[in-house]
């Protein structure tokens, strides 16, 4: 077992002092705060939202690689001069939430020295990048020669010249994870730095895809800069910024209202466990989570989580941990499907929320520790937060989620040209834990992950792979009054020699936790099958594994946990699950206490009542 960082000994005062927020404190602004009437406020709010969505549309349609295009693993938004996020696209939460950190990283290097026509490329994870493969493009916005803000976007590159194609977990340090670009002006006053561009593209395995993607990102930011500039020209800087301030204040106020409604106190989740660091298999890593509700503020303390590891399995603090905590709290307290649909995602949301993770821990590693493979750990944070709040808000939380991610990079060389690589990245889905009043969602991206899958037919037409299976897992869903979501199972057969790198966590020893009598979820798995019929279980993290033609890789996603006692499940829902062949008749009776009629099409309500009354001990 990996040794944890110091146990949770911080006092509330220490936590208040040491935890940090994504929000940017701004004392003096260079514009005049003016009164904006409620209608103009809506007009400017709508314009901000529209421009973020326009930026994202352009990016994922113009982008080259499938991870940006089909998976939509991107983010875009507008930030003010101080790096406060004014608006963001509704693409993937990780990307959007990290934009302020990218701008901080860019500012660190350039200290407000920008010229019209500058385009800055950045991917340094110790200076704000979410992780090195997530390139950020930042374009300063000028109106009348005055710098007023930034347009930014991020996108996941297929390959950035890491030790193995795509990515790999088992690397010694950050430098093995690919080429670092630390806030480089790729365009300086409108002039392309061609040698720098060539240098970057000549050090990756997929130069065509990367250059197409970066071109798209530049176009996206230029569009955003133009749109924001037009808005300022139309209404004046004072008015636009005052309206933006009002929208940030509004989001802040809504968030503070919701936090205040939660009784003050310390809410602690049971420790979670990660399987390993991708090198020292069998050595589990702890995740400790404490949430302190402090009036209308909220602090998330990750003290007690694993110390940093000697592979790429650490999480960049600013670019990944902070956005994830913000996501966890916003989603819980201002759920877009419930009351929070009209609250925009901007700097105001972040203000009441702070985070602390000790320096040198897995959630706040020290340079130059590797930190590419961060998603499986990071996605546990929102799940831990939900568990911490389970008692106080049972109707807002979910039972345990898959709360991991399975990302796999497949690569090889072209059949007709061995000097050219093909690399495909697939982010496999998880599932949701059951909710109060709703079953968990099956086979869907979970929590911080929200990408699209690649069509099977697209994959087979563009790479030497064949899909043998893609459906729900055969295991029964985790039982409960509302059942857990089922993971999917996918099988790829390889037609040529293929190398794979993967990151993830099967949660084999620490499956998603059932809530209020609901059953635990089921861990995931990755299995290699060779043509001679032998099969081999693989760990969730493999680095540069070679597969031969005819080999099959099976990936089974994690299944979410159940919520509430199974005997309280609506008999009709149990019958539907039997009809859908998700559970069998004997499970219906033993686990749910539901007896079906002879036809199997409906519940025998009399027998069911009797069965449920007699208890569930004789299943």
């Amino acid at each position, binding site marked *: 077992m990996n040794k944890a960082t110091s146990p949770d000994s911080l006092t509330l005062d220490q936590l208040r002092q040491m935890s940090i927020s994504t929000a940017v404190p701004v004392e003096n602004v260079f514009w005049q705060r003016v009164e904006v009437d409620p209608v103009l406020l809506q007009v400017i709010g709508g314009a901000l939202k529209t421009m973020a969505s326009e930026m994202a549309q352009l990016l994922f349609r113009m982008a080259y690689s499938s991870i940006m295009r089909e998976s939509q693993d991107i983010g875009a938004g507008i930030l003010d001069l101080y790096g406060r996020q004014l608006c963001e696209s509704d693409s993937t939460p990780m990307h959007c939430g990290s934009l302020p950190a990218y701008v901080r990283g860019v500012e660190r290097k350039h200290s407000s020295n920008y010229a019209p026509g500058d385009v800055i490329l950045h991917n340094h994870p110790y200076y704000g990048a979410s992780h090195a493969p997530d390139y950020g493009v930042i374009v300063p916005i000028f109106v009348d020669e005055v710098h007023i803000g930034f347009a930014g976007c991020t996108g996941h590159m297929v390959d950035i010249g890491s030790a193995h194609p795509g990515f790999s977990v088992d690397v010694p340090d950050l430098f093995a994870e690919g080429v670092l670009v630390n806030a480089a002006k790729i365009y300086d006053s409108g002039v392309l730095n061609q040698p720098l561009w060539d240098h970057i593209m000549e050090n990756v395995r997929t130069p065509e895809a990367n250059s197409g993607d970066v071109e798209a990102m530049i176009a996206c930011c230029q569009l955003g800069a133009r749109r924001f500039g037009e808005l300022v020209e139309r209404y004046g800087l004072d008015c636009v910024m005052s309206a933006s301030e009002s929208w940030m204040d509004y989001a802040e106020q809504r968030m503070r209202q919701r936090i205040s409604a939660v009784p003050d106190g310390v809410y602690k989740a049971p420790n979670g466990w990660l399987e390993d660091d991708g090198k020292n298999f069998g050595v589990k890593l702890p995740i400790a989570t404490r949430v302190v509700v402090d009036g209308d503020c909220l602090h998330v303390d990750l003290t007690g989580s694993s110390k940093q590891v000697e592979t790429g399995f650490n999480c960049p603090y600013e670019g990944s941990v902070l956005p994830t905590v913000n996501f966890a709290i916003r989603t819980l307290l201002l759920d877009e499907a419930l009351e929070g649909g009209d609250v925009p995602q901007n700097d105001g949301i972040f203000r009441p929320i702070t985070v602390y993770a000790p320096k040198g821990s897995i959630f706040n590693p020290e340079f130059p520790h590797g930190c590419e493979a961060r998603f499986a750990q990071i996605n546990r944070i929102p799940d831990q937060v939900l568990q911490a709040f389970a008692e106080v808000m049972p109707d807002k939380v979910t039972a345990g989620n898959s709360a991991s991610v399975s990302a796999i990079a497949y690569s090889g060389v072209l059949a007709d040209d061995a000097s050219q690589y093909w690399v495909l990245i697939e982010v496999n889905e998880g599932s949701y834990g059951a909710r109060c009043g709703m079953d968990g969602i099956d086979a869907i991206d979970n929590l911080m992950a929200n990408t699209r899958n690649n069509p099977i037919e697209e994959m087979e*037409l563009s790479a030497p792979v064949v899909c043998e299976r893609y459906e729900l897992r055969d295991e029964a869903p985790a039982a409960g009054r509302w059942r857990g979501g089922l993971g999917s199972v996918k099988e790829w057969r390889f037609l040529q020699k293929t190398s794979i790198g993967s990151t993830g966590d099967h949660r084999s020893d620490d499956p998603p936790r059932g809530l209020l009598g609901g059953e635990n979820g089921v861990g995931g798995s990755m299995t290699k099958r060779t043509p001679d019929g032998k099969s081999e279980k693989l760990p969730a993290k493999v680095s540069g594994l070679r597969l031969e033609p005819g080999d099959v890789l099976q990936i089974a996603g994690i299944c979410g946990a159940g919520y509430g006692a199974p005997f309280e499940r609506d008999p009709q829902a149990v019958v539907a699950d039997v009809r859908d062949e998700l559970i069998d008749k004997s499970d219906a009776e033993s686990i749910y206490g539901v007896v079906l009629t002879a036809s199997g099409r409906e519940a025998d309500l009399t027998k069911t009542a009797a069965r449920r009354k007699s208890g569930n001990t004789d299943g």
Partner: protein
Amino acid sequence: MHVSQFQVGIDVGGTFTDFVLRNLATGEEVVGKVPSTPHDPSLAGIEGLRQLSSESGFAIDQISRVLHGTTIATNILLQRSGSKAGLITTRGFRDILHIGRKKRSLNFSNYLDVPRQSRPIVPRYLRQTVRERVRAPDGRIETPLEMDDVAAAVDTLVHEGVESIAVCFLFAFLNPDHERRVKDHIESRFPELFVTCSHEVTPLHREYERFSTTALNAYVGPRTGHYVDRFNGSLKELGVGADLRLMSSAGGLMGSAAAKLRPVNLLLSGPVAALKKGVEVGQKAGFPNVITLDVGGTSADIGVAHGGKMRLKHVLDTQMGDFDAMVPMIDLETIGAGGGSIAFVDDGGMFNVGPRSAGARPGPVCYGLGGTEPTVTDALVVLGWFRESVLAGSGVAIDRNAAETAIEEKIATPLGLNLHQAALGIYQIAAKHMTDAIRLQSIAKGYDPREFVLIPFGGAGPAFAADIARELQIGKTVIPAHPGVGAAAGLLSSDIRYEHMSSLWDDLDTADRDVVSSKYDQLRSAAHAELDADGFTEDQMSFQFRADCRYRGQGYELTVDVPPDVLAQGWRESVANAFHGEHERLYLRSFPDKPVQLINVRLIGVGAVTQPAGSHMHRQHSDPGSHMIADCVFSGGAGPEVMPTPFFQRNAIGSELKLTGPAVVEQGDATTVVPPGCTLETDTLGNLIIGHGASHE
């Protein structure tokens, strides 16, 4: 033979069914409206024809064409009243419809509902798998179809009582043999079932979208078919010697037979026709670039047509309700902003309008039908613009006091505004939603609205249009003669259109042109056969050749027009240039050095319906003076201002009219508002033209 000289457009809306009857010899038009009959929309259709006939004195058997815009398929889907549908698919892929693209529609939500899972149109127990597998890229068969599995799957579905079956195999678009054999099996044993195959509905790659489209077709198929049959039967009884032609989502009409086979193509049938009318109005008035704004009770539809051409949606955007339908759809955006949209102040003190709507019942407060929450219509009444119900002939009296009280209590007081500020604010926020949506439909897609005219439809569209146009710097707003029946009128200007497509997946530079050419020939024969069956002669038929292209390595295609003669010199270059140009227009950049792929070929067969020249309005050179002057509230420099405003009757306006707002023009089906500073005139075609003085033309 009877004398055929009339055609009629029938558009079914939620509240009213609209009619426009056109005399093919003279071009004269008569319009009518009857209340809709939602349980069987054809009843209102027949009743309306009878009324129109008795009022206008034409014989019903003189109708030679009945053109129909219908929400039947859309409503079946949205109300989930479709048939019990089964699906047969490749073993190992039972849950493609359930998993979808596995992305959530909301980022920040744990309590998201996923309708494809919680309320599937084909539940898992009705999705059966069989052994078979077709392989890319050549369509060769790796696993032959196991007919025993097929027989068992079909028997299971029949035993469960399905009315329709979708047959969806991987890569069926490369080789349809297996799907065909399953269909043959079902049709020979259970001829009463509606069977539909993925390669027939949309023979394109992307399995989830194709399966979903096919499943939707199976879901809406039987009921849509019954409806078409019933309507045609009633028409025949009435003495009409023609079958229905139905508006498709792609903006062309389909014959009854094609509509019954591919009803999934009818999902946007309703709103498309108004855009079509906008295109026609614009072209006749000399404006090939039009943006249409059709404002209804609960929603507004926005369409953009450049150069007289309607644009199709990108494949990522062709959803209907909660489901994906990969069929050609006109790029219309529907937003939740209409006359019934509710204004409210939220917990954080923010002033909002919509998307929640009071609908037709309880409706706006001023209708006195039980509504208590202020709506957009209430605001327009308080502003003095609406004096009567825009629901023509509904007999609903307007209670202005009730509207004032509701806005005062629910909006003005909480926000610290006065009544006029609150009412004007409701109007402006609703207008802002429409403006933002037009922006995303135009600017975000590479079109500059300053090069367009705005054409409003619906009862309230002409009340909003001028301010929206001014905001977007659109120079002119054109209000057609009958904005309230735009969709019905649009049907009359539509041709028959059949689109066929085939997957190619080859490099443009090296593709065997004989193969490409023969693919187009096959598609052309299919379209030709359908047009032939609809009674078109060779000289009425025309064919458009299109191709879906992308740069090698990209994952989405753009559709471009290509020259028909594939074997002619320079064909590859023409296609490449068309693609580079479209890429540049949409995405601001193109990559002329990068290889282009030819993913799909498409062919559109058009059966031209000859149109009489539009009749000019019968001009009444009466006094263009207003029939009354009343106080209206408009936005002034420092907030709302009360201005004495002349009111005109539309049918009393002559061609010499020219004035500067404020002014209001009333007609039975709509109210036009001319804000202060805008000019109003008429053109020779009977359109009202509002000028904004901000034109960049």
